């Protein structure tokens, strides 16, 4: 492992009288100054302690261990810079960028609209007093609806971009996943067309491929479906 060396030379802390751990906020709190300052963070003794640590003279061992560390090749770790919400719809594992999600709501009464059967729009949903259009994600993506009744894990996902807000039903909200954009795998060529144009890549989440949806495409499909 490439662990960075300690920022303090060995023994630097031992020379310090850490009164904040003895009688201060991390100790038995018997320091007479404590009531005046409220917290050791506000006490000049604490600040002086930090300054003294920074003034510690470095040792040759400290210098060489640092030099050894920075001479090693840099290991690039990629903590996920982006985040997506993973969910299940019509038997598919899908994900959308987290910023488009505004709310996850329990499934409630869907007010159906006349002459809209089988179309993109499923109806209207009351979300905090606002009537929002509930759209069918399987129809937008060209997936075959399973036709099964909604499972108990089903939720309404309220998504928005700018002034546009829509609701769609997911069979299950699985969770958030942080990823790096360089780890996105390309979309397999076997994917059905409508699905493929909405997918910008595949994420790997718990050993399972998850289709990362392109929110811009999806919202434009939603809007076209309403026209």
């Amino acid at each position, binding site marked *: 492992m490439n662990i960075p*060396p300690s*920022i*303090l*030379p060995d023994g*630097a802390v031992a020379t310090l009288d850490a009164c904040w751990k003895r009688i201060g906020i991390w100790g038995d709190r018997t320091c007479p100054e404590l009531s005046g300052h409220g917290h050791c963070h506000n006490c000049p003794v604490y600040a002086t302690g930090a300054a003294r*640590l*920074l*003034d*510690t*003279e*470095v040792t*040759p061992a*400290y*210098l*060489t261990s*640092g*030099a050894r*560390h*920075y*001479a*090693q*090749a*840099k290991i690039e770790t990629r903590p996920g810079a982006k985040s997506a919400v993973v969910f299940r719809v019509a038997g598919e594992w899908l994900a959308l960028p987290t910023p488009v999600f505004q709310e996850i709501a329990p499934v409630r009464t869907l007010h159906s609209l006349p002459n809209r059967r089988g179309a993109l729009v499923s109806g209207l949903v009351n979300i905090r007093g606002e009537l929002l259009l509930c759209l069918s994600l399987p129809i937008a993506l060209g997936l075959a609806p399973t036709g099964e009744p909604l499972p108990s894990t089903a939720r309404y996902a309220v998504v928005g971009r700018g002034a546009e807000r829509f609701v769609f039903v997911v069979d299950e909200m699985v969770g958030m996943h942080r990823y790096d954009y360089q780890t996105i795998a390309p979309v397999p060529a076997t994917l059905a067309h409508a699905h493929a144009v909405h997918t910008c890549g595949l994420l790997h989440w718990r050993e399972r491929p998850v289709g990362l949806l392109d929110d811009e495409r999806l919202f434009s499909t939603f809007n076209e479906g309403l026209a």
Partner: protein
Amino acid sequence: VLYVLVQLGSDRYALPARDIVEVLPLVALKSLPGALRGVAGLLDYHGTAMPVVDLSALALGQPAALRVSTRLLIVRYLPPHGSERLLGLLAERTTEMIKWDPRDFSPAEVSGGARFLGPVVHDPRGLIQRIEVSELLTPELRAALFPEIVEVSR
């Protein structure tokens, strides 16, 4: 704009954080006997040799104190001709960062000091002067540290 504060002698100076790639602790450097004043040595930076300049030695002729608060800044140095290089910079008391509006800086009225010292900003603890990273190296130092940069002006 975020600035990293350093100390030079008894005064404080500010380096724009965008010029800084990484802040390293003080580490052992390969010394360069016979090098020009201000050159602290060579740093093995992940396998590449990087010249390190001691800010204190450069400006005051006195090497930086070997303390924990003295840190090694990896800065982006843009020579007048040629592309950006990485340069190590030893600076004392590199322990603080402050945000200022660049408009808060006013020109230092006195010129003729070190060429890399720029405009000043008022701070409750006194005046703080900006360090212009691109002006850090004199032509002689630049030629010594980065001999591959061709001087077009001459």
